[in-house]
């Protein structure tokens, strides 16, 4: 038994109570990532030190950046008597030494289960005068035994609305839209902001990890890099004319909360990965801006389309296996279908109700030939079993780093996409959303196919022009 061979083709393993090689991780890391997208915010993990260390390490490995976060450093005593004393001390210490504008506290399974009431503890901190003027503490409940890292991200994003966004009572600002980008790379957040600005609108983007987790080398240790959504900008989200939430799982709850709190009309739509999804995003912005799409965007769209037509014969009928976060998977599947490819296997460990329905919608006629699984037993082991027992090997794998074992064992090219990517660089700097992002993904997919063709070609068929 080796790691590379998770399973064999003839094994049909029925499981009830077990995850083997997970296709998800836990809520707090999502909350930590979202909180890093708040300007001058220190995420704070209310629990044992290990959780915080693991989350920081994983974020550092993925983004190749320092990921700062505090921890309540629970001990056995805290677990018995509650973590109030730890959190109060932490709040005092953090403001004294690190001086952030915001502390974003998220719970772990430990603090959640012993029942620590974070809002009440924060009240106590305010009463004791531990919060300096103009500073704030926000929180999200993120027990690890509920949801996944994506729902943790969603919960912290929603906390930004709950704690910060406000309706000033004045008229809505006509050109200002709220952009809730979902769990994407810093470069994606930049690209989305650029598109919104090109559409003549002023985006209030949160969370916004651009400038935080893709920061330049300055020679100085920046506890709080320059990027991130400011508290003031999020406050003004309560006065925007519309909210666009990308990805129902990661961004939907915040958009709904903003509607409930400040009556901002909202549109929750799939992540704009691929031409069709980006079209929808741009069309929505066009509705908001009064019907205007600048030439620059039309040109970008035309370029993607041009590339797709230039090379479409290489995509026809190619099959792919995908894994990762539901919001990403829905859009990726749609992208593949527009390329005439077939998403054959789709796996996400993240539980949730509407995933099958959404996948069904984008798969359309392809739904019959596609196996989709979700939940505890939907893991990399499951995916590997499917791939192994399929007589026609899939042509492509798209997903995070964990797919590399399958890629090697089955000799199938892998395009790294999603979280985490621990073994490559660049993903944080190259957007995959929008038309430009579509170009990037197209290039990656096509390269994978052409490299494979070159590698496998007989000498007589090894050609210069393809």
């Amino acid at each position, binding site marked *: 038994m080796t790691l590379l061979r998770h399973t064999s083709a003839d094994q049909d393993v029925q499981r009830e109570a077990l995850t083997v090689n997970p296709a998800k991780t836990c809520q707090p890391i999502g909350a930590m990532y979202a909180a890093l997208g708040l300007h001058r915010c220190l995420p704070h993990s209310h629990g044992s030190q290990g959780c915080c260390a693991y989350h920081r390490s994983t974020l550092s490995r993925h983004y190749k950046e320092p990921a700062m976060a505090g921890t309540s450093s629970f001990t056995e005593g805290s677990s018995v008597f509650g973590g109030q004393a730890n959190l109060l001390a932490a709040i005092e210490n953090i403001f004294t030494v690190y001086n952030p504008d915001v502390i974003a506290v998220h719970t772990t399974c*430990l603090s959640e289960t012993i029942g620590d009431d974070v809002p009440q503890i924060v009240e106590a901190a305010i009463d004791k005068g531990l919060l300096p003027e103009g500073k704030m503490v926000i929180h999200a409940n993120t027990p690890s035994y509920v949801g996944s890292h994506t729902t943790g991200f969603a919960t912290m994003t929603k906390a930004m609305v709950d704690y910060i966004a406000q309706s000033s009572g004045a008229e809505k600002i006509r050109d200002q839209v709220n952009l809730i980008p979902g769990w994407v790379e810093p470069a994606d957040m930049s690209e989305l902001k650029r598109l919104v600005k090109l559409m003549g609108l002023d985006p209030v983007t949160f969370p916004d990890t651009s400038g935080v987790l893709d*920061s330049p080398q300055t020679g100085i240790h920046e506890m709080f890099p320059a990027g991130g959504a400011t508290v003031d900008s999020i406050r003004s989200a309560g006065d925007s004319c519309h909210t666009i939430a990308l990805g129902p799982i990661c961004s939907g709850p915040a958009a709904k909360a903003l509607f409930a709190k400040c009556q901002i009309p909202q549109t929750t739509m799939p992540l704009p990965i691929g031409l069709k999804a980006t079209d929808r995003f741009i069309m929505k912005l066009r509705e908001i801006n009064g019907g205007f799409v600048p030439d620059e965007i039309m040109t970008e769209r035309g370029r993607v389309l041009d590339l797709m037509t230039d090379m479409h014969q290489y995509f026809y009928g190619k099959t792919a296996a995908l894994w990762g976060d539901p919001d990403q998977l829905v859009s990726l599947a749609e992208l593949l279908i527009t390329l005439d490819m077939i998403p054959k296997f789709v796996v996400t460990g993240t539980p949730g109700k509407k995933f099958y329905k959404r996948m069904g919608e984008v798969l359309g006629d392809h739904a019959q030939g596609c196996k989709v699984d979700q939940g505890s037993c939907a893991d990399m082991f499951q995916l590997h079993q499917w791939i192994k027992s399929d007589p026609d090997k899939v042509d492509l794998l798209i997903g995070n780093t964990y797919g590399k074992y399958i890629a090697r064992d089955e000799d199938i090219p892998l395009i790294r996409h999603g979280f985490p990517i621990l073994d490559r660089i660049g993903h944080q700097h190259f957007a995959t959303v929008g038309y430009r992002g579509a170009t990037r993904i197209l290039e990656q997919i096509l390269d994978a196919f052409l490299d494979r063709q070159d590698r496998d070609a007989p000498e007589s068929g090894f050609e210069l022009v393809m």
Partner: protein
Amino acid sequence: MREAIDILDARRRQVHTKGSQPFQLDCEKHSVAGSVSQRACVFCGSRVVLYPITDALHLVHGPIGCAAYTWDIRGAQSSGSQLHRMSFSTDLREKDVIYGGEKKCEAALIELIGRYRPKAAFVYATCIVGLIGDDLEAVCRRVTAQTGVETIPVHSEGFAGSKKDGYTAACAALDRLVGTSESPPPDGPSINILGDFNIAGETWIIRDYYERMGVNVISTITGDGRVDDIRRAHQAQLNVVQCSGSMKGLARLMKQKYDIPFVHVSYFGLEDVSKALYDVAEQFNDPAMMQRTTQLVRDEISAVMPQLRRYRDALQGKKAAVYTGGAFKAFSLVRSLRTLGVQTVIAGSQTGNPQDYQQLESLCDDGTVLLDDTNPLELAKFIDQTGADLLIGGVKERPIAYKLGVAFCDHNHERKRCLAGYEGMVNFANEVYSSVCSPVWSLSPRKRHAPPVKRSIGPGPLVTADAGLPLNTKAPQCPTAATVPSAGSDSHACGVCQLKAHCSGLAAQETETA
């Protein structure tokens, strides 16, 4: 960090600058809440120690995160089974937290043991399991009875202390395996290698040294570990313990139970690895073995010295910051860096004890900043203050160094080349050199105005032949004599060789090659 940053008041006594005042450093304290600590938890400690037992099943009983974050993140290599690299989790959900997870855990174990037939199974208790009170002992007893595969609970609830307590829990789990085999003991001198984790194959190098000395290695715990070997570990005559934090517990237990003595060693750096081999040879009181050891040390040092000398020429005068998990490794690093002409200006660990820091202080030069359980802000501040050219640490320290425009060497989980043993020292020198002397730093804001670095060694593999190399040494001498404060005795206690025979032998050899 241009502006002055305060050290947390509660942490002031965990920082000390050598020579500034009488030495006293607070340590073994819980991290201050709110501090951006680089430390981890009990589960992490147990998991890293037991992880490299390759033919055991490792089931993480808890929510998914604990398993996901420890899935194959350490390059602990195996010469056989790869079962340890799989990630198994009970993926506890809300209803399990309410109704308890014992049934789920038991079902998972039965299923996994049935499928993989491991030699033994470890079940790790995470925070939540401790809290909801699952009786893992009972679960394991039932599973052992039903499957015949020994199933061992690891009491590693994350909140129950620090990473160190995880080591203790791992040792307690191992203690249940040791002594459970009745196979006949081997003839001749025998040891267990404890506390090496076979990162990048290091255990294999160490094992080879001992075998060349004529010592049987009964078990390696835990790097490239095998359950059956661990079961008969009690047959060894000596336990050789590296990584003091993690495995001293097991060595102590084996001393009590089986009266097996243990020695403390380190395999990092010429001085420490040589001392380790001599210390082990000394324990067996066998002149022939000592002679073989002397020969081994001599051969190995002569093989690597020419290369090291070239690195030393390039690195002379550079300054390093060292921040490790355990303190024992920090000693080796200070000495190894000195061998390379690099001065340690910051030294710290996550889990050192008073004796560790006392020793660390005595090793360092005046002005060295000593840190216990530090955080990024302090590290950055002291790197800036001391003008360190290099940071040695782990995954969370790497991007901090790079943002500062400072070279980095991973001496932790993520090292890709073995850094232990003699060849490991060359790799270490190469790693340090390739980072410190990279032209990339001349482009960084921090170093833009600094004079260009001396790049005397070209990229690519180094030629081992030393013909034409500029040998700085005027007279043949012990390779490390210049780097180690001499004890001044004619037994030449340089720490590397400790034996006159070695030095004179080496000197003769160098004269020939020169």
